[in-house]
C-alpha cells in the first residue's frame, strides 16, 4: 500500500487571519478560498495570469514592494495585507489613470451598469479623476457581423487575447504597439470582420468593459457572462 502523496502545505496570515495553502498557490487563490476579497481586473478565473492591471496588489511584510496577488505565490510564514491605506491609494490611482487614458463615457456606454471598471470605481470610492483626461482619437471596428470593438473603452487587460488563444484556440486577438500606444488588434491588424475569427463570442463575454460588445445588445442592457470559463475548463479536464 503506497503512502498518500505528500502535500506541501504552507501557513501564512492574510489581514491577520491564519490561513493554510498548498505550495504554488497564488495569494489571490488563497484569499478567495478564505473569503478575503481582493479587487481584480485583468484576472479572470479560467485564464492564465498576466499581472497587467496591478489592481490586486498586496503588501507582504518585509518587502518594500507591492506584489500582485494574482501572480505572487504563497510562502511559509508570509504576512500579507490586502486593505492598507497605501494599497487603497494605489488602487484608486490605477483606476483613475485607466479612466483618464481613453474615452470612458459611462453614461452612453453599451456596458453602463455592467462594467467592471465602472463598478470597481464605485467600490474603491472613486468620485472624480484627479488627472487630466487624454481624450485620444480612437477608432471603432464594426466590420464584424455580430460584434464591435470600441478602442475608446479598452483598458488593455488582454482577457480577449488570452481567451481567444487559450480557450478558443484561434488567437485572432493580439496587442500591437507599445506603452500608451498599445492597441488590441485582430489578426495582423486587419478588420475583425475579415479576420480568422470563429465568431464564438468568448472575447465579448470576458471583456470587462464596453470595448467588445454584441451589436444586438446596443440600446439594451448588456451583462457579460464570463462564468462559463471555469465550467468549460472543468468539462475539458474531465474528458
Amino acid at each position, binding site marked *: 500500500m503506497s503512502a498518500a502523496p505528500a502535500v506541501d502545505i504552507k501557513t501564512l496570515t492574510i489581514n491577520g487571519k491564519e490561513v493554510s495553502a498548498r505550495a504554488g498557490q497564488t495569494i489571490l487563490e488563497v484569499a478567495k478560498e478564505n473569503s478575503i476579497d481582493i479587487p481584480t481586473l485583468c484576472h479572470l478565473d479560467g485564464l492564465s495570469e498576466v499581472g497587467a492591471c496591478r489592481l490586486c496588489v498586496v503588501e507582504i511584510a518585509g518587502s518594500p514592494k507591492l506584489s500582485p496577488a494574482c501572480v505572487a505565490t504563497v510562502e511559509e510564514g508570509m504576512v500579507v495585507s490586502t486593505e492598507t491605506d497605501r494599497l487603497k491609494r494605489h488602487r484608486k490611482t490605477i483606476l483613475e489613470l485607466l*479612466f483618464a487614458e481613453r*474615452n*470612458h*463615457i*459611462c*453614461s*452612453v*456606454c453599451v456596458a*453602463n*451598469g455592467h*462594467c467592471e471598471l*465602472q*463598478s470597481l*470605481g*464605485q*467600490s474603491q*470610492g*472613486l*468620485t*472624480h*479623476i*484627479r488627472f*487630466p*483626461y487624454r*481624450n*485620444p*482619437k*480612437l477608432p471603432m471596428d464594426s466590420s464584424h457581423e455580430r460584434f464591435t470593438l470600441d478602442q475608446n473603452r479598452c483598458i488593455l487587460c488582454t482577457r480577449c487575447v488570452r481567451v481567444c488563444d487559450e480557450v478558443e484556440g484561434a488567437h485572432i486577438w493580439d496587442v500591437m504597439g507599445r506603452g500608451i500606444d498599445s492597441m488590441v488588434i485582430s489578426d495582423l491588424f486587419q478588420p475583425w470582420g475579415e479576420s480568422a475569427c470563429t465568431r464564438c463570442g468568448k472575447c465579448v463575454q470576458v471583456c470587462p468593459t464596453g470595448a467588445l460588445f454584441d451589436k444586438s445588445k446596443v440600446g439594451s442592457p448588456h451583462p457579460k457572462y464570463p462564468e462559463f470559463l471555469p465550467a468549460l475548463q472543468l468539462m475539458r479536464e474531465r474528458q
Partner: protein
Amino acid sequence: MSKHTLATVWLDGCSGCHMSFLDMDERLVDLAAYFDLVYSPLVDLKTYPEHVDFALVEGAISSTDDLAKIKKIRAHTGTLIAMGDCAITGNVPSMRNPFTTREITDRAYFENVSAQPQLPTLYVPTLLKTVKPIQEYVHVDYYLPGCPPSADTFFAFLSGLVQGKPVDVSSLTRFGA
C-alpha cells in the same frame, strides 16, 4: 437658526441634473427648512450673489462663458459641489474633445444647416479647445457623480450636508448612474 444659502448652476450639461434635483418632489419642502435657493436657473435672480454657502454646479467647462462663470462662482461660494458626470468627468460634452473646435462648429452651423448657414458672432460664447471637468479649473469640495445623480442621492447628500455629516457618495451613486 438662519438658513443656508444655496445656488444651483447650469454650465455645459443637459439640465438633467436639475430635473433630477426637482424629482426630490415633496422632499424639497423638507429641504426648504434648511436652504434658501438664492440663485438658480429655477429662480429669477440673474447675478450671482456676493456670498453663497453651497453651490451645486451642473455641467462641464466648454466655453469662455463657462470658464468665467465657474471662476466667479468659486470666488463667491463657501462649499462648491460638482453635480453630475458632466461637471466631474466632462461626460457627453467632452465627446467632442478628439475633434477640433472648427470641426465641431462646421458640423453644427454649416454641414447640417440648409437655411443661411453661418457662424454666430453674437451671444454665443467661444468654445474652448477642449471640454474639461470643473475640478481642472477650480477647487471642488464635494463630488456627486451620476448621469444624473438620482433624487434619492440628492436628498441623502443634502441631508448629510445640513447635519454636518457628509455621506459616502460612493454608496449612493457612480459614474453613469
